[in-house]
């Protein structure tokens, strides 16, 4: 029996399925239950319609803005950036949790990742797709956006590579490409599974094309696992860099309240925090409506909630540090700004931010609440709100009270801003809804990795 199957102890370091998914018996069940989620329902159509409606509202508002001029949006100089940049940072941030879960946790072999990473990753891609729109539609002359891309032209002119905005272009485009590639690569084997289960010839053909003729052969798996590992390894520093670069948009500026070295780590933490919030907002309804509670278990939620709590603490620390730095800097402009932030005309926004991002998440110290999906869902909504207002507090108050008192001003968004913000949510959820009914929201192949395979009695063969 020298050649008998290696004892199960030699299996790779995957948390024992019996502990993690007691309710999942075998591969067939995985296929059946996860693919079961793919049948469109009336509720789904309703949701999709709503999303598309919101999108159309946003799009028409944007056309109007392009025609009439940026003036129809609520810019009040000196506040030259507003809802659009705020939403840009917000959406980029949302994206980060996905990459964190799918890449970083993959490298750390964190068990609870398996069940939620596909969702999170899709969320990343769509969030970045959404974020990418805002820098363009906040331009005074959006039809010239391509001047930010380095390409040979007859003016012999190139972008100004010292500008954080050009850094953004590179960071965001890279992020979008890599994360969508990562998502797709992970999907290929699952699509292959769908292809083989599919009976409808048309859909089968489509799946066949999408699966690139994947066959689950040993050689494919060999390269697949490697490639996947490297992509994860790339995504990890990338996710840290992207939001650091976004934070440079502010940190590189002179503006009091922006000009701070703490921004990159502070932004990354905030991004992951907000992303986890969005993950909860998405995954909790899904596990409920798709009856996937025994895949996305309370343990998984619990673990994710712990991360959420941690990042919230980091963010909170960053907030307090900012005040402390301003206080100790002896820099009048900084001090004025931070005083104005909490007690001035924007106090309300600042307090929304502090309560939603610092205070409420503290509830996650209680395990009961961590394991309570409905609370997590409610909390996640507050987190999304709070994180949007964090960016508001960073952008607007800083600009409205800069160096020059004579030019101090205020800010009031108009219906155009709100319509476009709504449109961005429509855009995001349209894609997400389309995704969850076409492709598995839980990685079938990876599930099978942690589900025990059929075995003959150990040492079988017996001769």
């Amino acid at each position, binding site marked *: 029996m020298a050649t008998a199957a290696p004892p199960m102890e030699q299996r790779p370091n995957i948390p024992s399925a019996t502990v993690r998914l007691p309710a999942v018996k075998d591969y067939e069940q995985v296929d059946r239950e996860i693919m079961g989620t793919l049948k469109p329902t009336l509720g789904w159509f309703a949701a999709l319609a709503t999303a598309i409606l919101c999108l159309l509202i946003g799009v028409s508002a944007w056309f109007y803005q392009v025609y009439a001029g940026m003036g129809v949006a609520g810019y009040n100089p000196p506040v030259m950036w507003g809802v659009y940049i705020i939403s840009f940072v917000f959406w980029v941030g949302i994206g980060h949790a996905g990459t964190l879960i799918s890449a970083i946790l993959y490298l750390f072999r964190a068990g609870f990742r398996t069940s939620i990473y596909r969702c999170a990753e899709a969320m990343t891609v769509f969030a970045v797709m959404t974020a990418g729109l805002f820098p363009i539609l906040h331009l005074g002359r959006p039809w010239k956006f*391509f001047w930010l*891309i380095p*390409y*040979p*032209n*007859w*003016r*012999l*002119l190139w972008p100004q590579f010292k500008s954080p905005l050009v850094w953004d272009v590179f960071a965001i485009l890279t992020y979008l490409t890599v994360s969508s590639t990562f998502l797709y690569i992970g999907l290929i084997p699952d699509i292959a599974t769908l292809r083989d289960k599919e009976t409808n010839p048309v859909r089968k053909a489509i799946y066949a094309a999408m699966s*690139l*003729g994947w066959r689950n052969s040993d050689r494919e798996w060999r390269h697949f696992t490697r490639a996947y590992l490297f992509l994860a390894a790339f995504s990890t520093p990338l996710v840290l860099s992207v939001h650091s670069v976004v934070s440079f948009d502010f940190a590189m500026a002179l503006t009091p309240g922006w000009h701070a070295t703490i921004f990159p780590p502070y932004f990354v933490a905030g991004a992951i925090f907000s992303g986890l919030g969005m993950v909860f907002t998405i995954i909790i309804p899904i596990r409920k409506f798709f009856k996937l509670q025994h895949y996305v278990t309370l343990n998984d939620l619990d673990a994710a909630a712990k991360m959420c709590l941690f990042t919230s603490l980091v963010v909170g620390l960053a907030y307090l540090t900012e005040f402390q730095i301003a206080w100790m800097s002896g820099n009048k402009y900084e001090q004025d700004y931070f005083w104005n932030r909490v007690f001035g005309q924007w106090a309300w926004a600042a307090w929304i931010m502090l309560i939603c991002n610092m205070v409420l998440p503290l509830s996650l110290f209680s395990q009961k609440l961590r394991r309570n999906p409905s609370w997590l869902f409610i909390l996640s909504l507050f987190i999304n709100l709070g994180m949007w207002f964090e960016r508001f507090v960073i952008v607007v108050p800083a600009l409205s009270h800069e160096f020059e008192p004579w030019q101090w001003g205020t800010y009031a968004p108009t219906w155009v801003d709100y319509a476009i913000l709504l449109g961005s949510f429509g855009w995001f959820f349209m894609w997400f809804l389309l995704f969850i009914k076409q492709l598995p929201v839980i990685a079938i192949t990876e599930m099978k990795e942690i589900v025990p395979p059929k075995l003959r009695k150990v040492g079988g063969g017996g001769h």
Partner: protein
Amino acid sequence: MTQRRKWTAIPGLILLAIGAVALSAYSGASSSQNNSPVQPILFPHPLHAAGNLNMNCLYCHNTANKSPDPGLPAVSTCMGCHLIARADRPEVQKLAKYYAMGSGKPVPWVRIHKLPEYVRFPHMRHVNAGVTCQSCHGPVQEMTQVYQFASLNMGWCVNCHVNGYDPREGLKATGIVDTSTTVTPDAERKRARYDCASCHY
């Protein structure tokens, strides 16, 4: 072996390439180059600016060396000669009709060389620097119907500002002097400011 090498071609990459090309095309090349509209009067530059008349461009475009604006000859200037000279030619009679002894209306020439409003092109700076008209406008003295010779896009301007204007090339372009035999030493090339505010303000 079981592996049948069936590569789906790389259409994606091809699309990317096409996109890039389209973009750079959209970004620049002048569409008005070689545009050659028909003028209300078929003014023959060759007859005037070459041949035995061989008039100097500045005789008619008389402010090119003292104004940003090259200037068009006033109809009276034309009639200075054409009251008598060739008065029987149909085109000249057209001109006379426009003139109508002072009470007439000017000739609506169709504009060919047009820079965008945000570009300042002071003709006199170039003329006085010795840049021959033909360097930019081409061999007008040979054009029976004038057309836009240069692309007039920014790269075209900047090339000359940075790499410098070659007086010999310029003279050669006039077709009057042929200096093709000698080559200009780099020091003699006339260079100009190449920062944006030289032309855009």
